[in-house]
């Protein structure tokens, strides 16, 4: 048990270190000079440009040796300072991101959790039920094979453009100000629904298929046969099979999280949803590498936390890891 934790902790620490280092490298090794590109957009006089260049280089911390920059990066990172946005100069990156985070979380968390829960329940229900297996599961396969953005585009087109039920883009209606009013919240929900639905559906298909296969394996296992031999009703056997098949699905969630996050980001782009995904697109288009860096840092931390939580949950739900008989997923 302690071995499991030590090992996990070490891996997360190392991963965090590597990921942050890569993240640090984003603005430094990008082609082009971020400061230069920012100045060029401002169209200044050449001499004032030189002065400005020095000023900005200094304020971005780019005028010291590279190893110093690296150490400084960690230093300011630990203080929560992510630098200044080039695109939205002089807004600090942290506040730009802080504005986007709630949207991304509101989209991603329910989509991930609900699709996982619903997909698994449905998959378990469909397994070894021939009619469902032959009718519904093919749809699950198709859903699972769809690129996230395409399902988003389809939904937006059908329900947004053609049927005009849901708005096509944005986080809330034009002309509304963020406030705690029914009208605003209603608008939020309306805008939230389509991106959520497209994320949910793709995930749903994948989990359903995975669960269906796992349940079949569990139903063929010795303990299922023993229960049959003791005349236990299918209900109990399936319940046990479901509980046991959930364990690999918990691990599966950890394995999938990176892909899901990427999917959520592109879905935001399709719907111009004001979350991190859109921010990243803007940052790329505006060569705002500090913003990019900050956005990725949040994703890295988010993915690491999610993985860590899943690991801990796994320990809680699988007695085999608790009794220390197996290293389980590590």
């Amino acid at each position, binding site marked *: 048990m302690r071995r499991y934790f030590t090992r996990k902790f070490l891996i997360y620490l190392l*991963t965090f270190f*590597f990921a942050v280092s*890569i993240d640090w490298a984003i603005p430094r090794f990008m082609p082009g000079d971020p400061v230069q590109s920012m100045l060029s957009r401002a169209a200044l006089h050449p001499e004032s440009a030189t002065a400005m260049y020095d000023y900005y280089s200094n304020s971005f911390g780019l005028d010291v040796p590279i190893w110093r920059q690296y150490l400084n990066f960690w230093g300011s990172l630990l203080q929560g300072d992510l630098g200044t946005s080039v695109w939205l100069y002089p807004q600090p990156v942290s506040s730009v991101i802080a504005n986007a985070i709630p949207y991304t979380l509101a989209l991603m968390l329910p989509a991930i959790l609900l699709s996982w829960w619903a997909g698994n329940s449905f998959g378990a229900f469909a397994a070894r039920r021939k009619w469902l297996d032959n009718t519904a599961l093919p749809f699950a396969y198709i859903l699972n094979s769809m*690129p996230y953005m395409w399902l988003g585009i389809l939904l937006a087109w059908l329900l947004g453009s053609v049927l005009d039920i849901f708005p096509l883009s944005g986080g809330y209606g034009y002309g509304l100000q963020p406030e705690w009013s029914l009208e605003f919240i209603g608008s939020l929900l309306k805008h939230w629904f389509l991106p959520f639905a497209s994320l949910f559906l793709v995930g749903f298909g994948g989990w359903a298929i995975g669960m269906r296969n796992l349940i079949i394996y569990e139903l063929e296992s010795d303990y299922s046969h023993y229960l049959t031999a003791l005349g236990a009703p299918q209900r109990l056997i399936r319940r046990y099979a479901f509980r046991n098949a959930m364990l690999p699905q918990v691990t599966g969630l950890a394995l999938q999280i990176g892909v899901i996050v990427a999917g959520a980001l592109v879905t935001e*782009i399709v719907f111009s949803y004001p979350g991190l995904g859109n921010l990243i*697109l803007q940052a790329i288009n505006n060569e705002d590498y500090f913003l990019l860096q900050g956005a990725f840092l949040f994703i*890295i931390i988010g993915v690491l936390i999610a993985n860590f939580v899943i690991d801990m949950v796994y320990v809680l739900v699988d007695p085999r890891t608790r009794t220390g008989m197996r290293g389980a997923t*590590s």
Partner: protein
Amino acid sequence: MTDANLMTVPDAAADPARRKRSEALYFAVRNPKLIVGGTVLVALLLLAIVGPYLTDNPPNDYVGPKASPPSGDYWFGTTTFGQDVFSQFVHGLRTTFVVGVLGGGIAALIGMAVGFTAGYRGGRVDEFLNMVTNIVLVIPTLAVLLVVSAYLKARGVLVEGLFVGFTSWPWAARAIRAQTFSLTARDFVDLARLSGLRTRRIIFREIAPNMSSYLVMTWILLFGGSILIAATLDFIGLGPTNGTSLGLMMNNAVLWSALQLGMWWWFIPPGLGITAVVGGLYIMNVGLDEVFNPRLREL
């Protein structure tokens, strides 16, 4: 020791190899999933190969009327700029296959190298490789791809395939490791060692052939996964800078408001193409699983 061997043991009369193979074949030709998936895939592959010869229009040139719906001249219509969507589609389909094969192939190679080594060697080597695998697994690959792809101003399909391959191997490595681990515990591996065989030979000649069906299935999943990842990259503008791809088509469609303008012929084909290829692969994979895995067969 029990009746479980009964179906296989007491039959000296039937021809050995043929029986085992014919059994797989028997289920293969009767497996609707395998047939449907395979047919879709082959049809699209043919289209990707032949398609570009069916049209004279270069995919990115402004050749026709702007934003015209599908017609006899432009089978899939044209874009806002008058590009031929059909031409883009078939060229994009090619790209999709190339990226899939390449990305899936590289990921499979790395996954096999890591998985075989970790599973066979065990011990410290295993622990180290496990750690590397876990790290690559958790790092959001998008970040890495962003750095690398932005670093290279001109990117081609090959480069994209490579990147995708280099980041999508970890789960395959894990799966192969587990398989190798269980096979390594079998006595025939020990006997191969007692026959003086070297490690590499044991892995490639004794262990790998035993899991060939498993490796094929892993590769198929990686193939499909690579296509989806590449589409995502294309969509946020990190795809190939030259040429076209299905993801890029969707990107452009969204960028130039095809949705709002109701130009469904612009964004339906690329997504449908990807879905069909990946779906074909996945469904084929399930079919293969049922063929090789007696437990999943319907009786």
